């Protein structure tokens, strides 16, 4: 994985030291809260409901064991013994004390980590397919270009005060696991007819109160031109994005107002200007240098079949269930990609204890894994596991309470922290998510229901991606009482779509029953092989709505 050069190391260390003096000046009263707030936000430090919250960048979701161990150390020494992985693949600590944060930043710098640009109106942490470098059908690893974008956009003076935050994601297979069409810029690595690798560039996707799927702006941008093309997009946005209304400030509003053709025309004008100067051309040798950091491990020449694996499937029902959902075929023979669910039934989505972090790092040491991934679905991934090692890895995960067999099933819910932690939330999301998990805990039923993506947010800002859920749940505040709206038909994958609101919302004691009625409706309506999303797309909202509200209407009359 990527290692800091002396410039990276100096930059991150200096930033930590600058923040130390900023905190000191704040506590002494030399800075007011209004003056200090933009400074702390630029370092990922928020003031939340109970305490401060520190958001740590995990670029393209890749962590080494020394980094995982350092996060565990920070969780124990400075927080309450746990952390939370977010839908931007970052880690949040919910209880740090302001006076300790400069020390935490130095501890992070020790392992090449930071909180830079995890907040504020700048280019945020770049995300990528969590199966990068391991999945079959990948044209190339999306992380080198993600790293290059990270370096290019870190402290970029022209783009440090954009109209609003800006999020970029990269994927490299036909299947989209990085939700690229839901990003300000989504990059899909593609191959043209001449066999050259380049980028399809989508712009203007986003969640929030005005959800949009991104439009295709760049049909094929060459490798050397990608930074110039991104800069052209950012320039158009920086100049014409709205600064007068926070709700209309994201690039999605500009793109969808102008339309794809006009936005593309403006980008191309800027792009031509940048090209004329001859700058921002990605030197092939620099690209090679960065790519080398992400070279896959030397895969052993293994047979596809593993007797150890097959025996464990036969002997251990738990292992067989886990293998069924949490393993994905690897591109190398004799290997598998293993998803570690952070969605234990009845536990908080995305939370991980310090002991679990250390345990994961120890597994990495013991089995020779050099990295673990964080997915935007708030799970972890071991990207390269020898099939013959899987039973032993599973046993170790089980001992850590990290072996839940539910990846991609209805209990694998994406969920924001909601009103239990967040200052912006209108309603709780975690307890609802936990209750839904308990309702559908029966594994046989989960398997029968197949792939159902429930995504839940505690407010309209949509950190829990509810617009992209097959079933989306949005928490709202109705006269001081928590209420929940259901959306159906959203997708965060290559067939991205915005979910449609079903109808009136439900109280916190009704929402789980309502979700169960949605699922029961699907079971009644489905045709063989259809996922809930497919059935919804075929039959539309009405049959679902009729079945979900019928009981309520009976009760009301």
């Amino acid at each position, binding site marked *: 994985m990527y290692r800091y050069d002396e410039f990276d190391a100096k930059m991150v260390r200096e930033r930590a030291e600058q923040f130390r003096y900023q905190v000191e000046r704040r506590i002494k*009263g030399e800075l007011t809260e209004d003056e200090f707030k933009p400074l702390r936000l630029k370092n990922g430090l928020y003031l939340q409901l109970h305490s401060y919250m520190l958001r740590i960048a995990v670029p393209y979701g890749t962590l080494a064991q020394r980094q995982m161990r350092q996060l565990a150390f920070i969780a124990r020494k400075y927080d309450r013994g746990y952390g939370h992985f977010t839908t931007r693949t970052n880690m949040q600590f919910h209880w740090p004390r302001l006076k300790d944060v400069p020390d935490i930043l130095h501890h992070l710098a020790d392992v090449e980590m930071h909180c830079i640009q995890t907040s504020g109106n700048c280019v945020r942490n770049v995300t990528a397919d969590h199966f990068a470098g391991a999945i079959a059908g990948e044209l190339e690893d999306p992380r080198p270009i993600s790293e290059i974008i990270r370096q290019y956009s870190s402290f970029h003076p022209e783009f440090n005060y954009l109209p609003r935050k800006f999020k970029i994601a990269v994927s490299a297979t036909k299947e989209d696991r990085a939700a690229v069409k839901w990003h300000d810029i989504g990059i899909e690595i593609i191959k043209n007819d001449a066999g050259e690798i380049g980028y399809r560039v989508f712009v203007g996707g986003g969640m929030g109160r005005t959800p949009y799927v991104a439009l295709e702006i760049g049909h094929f941008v060459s490798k050397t031109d990608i930074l110039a093309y991104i800069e052209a997009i950012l320039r158009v946005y920086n100049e014409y994005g709205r600064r007068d209304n926070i709700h209309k400030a994201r690039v999605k509003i500009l793109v969808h107002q102008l339309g794809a053709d006009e936005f593309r025309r403006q980008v191309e004008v800027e792009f031509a200007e940048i090209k004329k100067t001859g700058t921002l051309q990605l030197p092939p040798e620099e690209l090679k240098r960065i790519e080398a950091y992400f070279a896959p491990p030397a895969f052993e020449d293994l047979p596809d079949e593993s007797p150890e694996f097959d025996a464990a499937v036969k002997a251990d029902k738990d292992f067989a269930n886990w293998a069924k959902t949490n393993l994905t075929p690897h591109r190398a023979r004799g290997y598998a990609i293993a998803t570690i669910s952070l969605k234990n039934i009845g536990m908080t989505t995305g939370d991980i204890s310090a002991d679990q972090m250390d345990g994961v790092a120890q597994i990495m040491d013991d089995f020779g894994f050099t990295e673990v991934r964080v997915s935007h679905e708030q799970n972890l991934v071991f990207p390269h596991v020898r099939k013959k090692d899987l039973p032993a890895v599973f046993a170790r995960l089980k001992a850590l309470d990290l072996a839940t067999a539910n990846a991609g099933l209805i209990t694998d819910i994406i969920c924001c922290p909601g009103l239990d932690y967040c200052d912006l939330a209108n309603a709780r999301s975690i307890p609802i998510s936990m209750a839904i998990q308990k309702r559908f805990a029966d594994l046989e039923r989960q398997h029968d229901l197949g792939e159902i993506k429930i995504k839940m947010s505690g407010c309209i800002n949509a950190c829990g991606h509810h617009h992209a859920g097959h079933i989306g749940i949005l928490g709202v505040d109705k006269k001081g009482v928590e209420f929940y709206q259901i959306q159906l038909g959203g997708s965060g994958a290559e067939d991205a779509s915005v979910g449609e609101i079903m109808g009136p919302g439900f109280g916190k004691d009704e929402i789980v029953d309502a979700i169960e009625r949605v699922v029961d409706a699907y079971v009644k309506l489905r045709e063989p092989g259809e996922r809930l999303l497919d059935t919804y797309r075929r039959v539309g909202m009405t049959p679902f709505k009729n079945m979900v509200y019928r009981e309520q209407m009976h009760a009301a009359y």
Partner: protein
Amino acid sequence: MAAPVPQMLTANRLIDGEVLYWHDGNWVSDFARGDVFDDPKAAEAALEAAKAFMRDNIVVAAYLFDVRRTANGVEPVKEREIIRAAGPSNRTDTGKQAGLGPQEPKDIPPIQL
């Protein structure tokens, strides 16, 4: 005219973010010890007094919120303030509900930077 809704005054402590409640011209960590204002004028006066603590960089984000008197004592009206007073409802091992010890302002150790 309906009787005014009782209110309490809250803020976060600057140095560590701890949720605090106004009591007798100062701040306490424990919701149950916070002053309840039945008179809106008294509530506004307390908020005005709290501004001095903001100027002195002791607390940030002071505001008033509605409470109600019940058989079990005073409770916040909104879920947000119920959770803020107790801690996250999904993790009762954290927050004030875990009894990790409210630190009164006098207990703050000297700042070492």
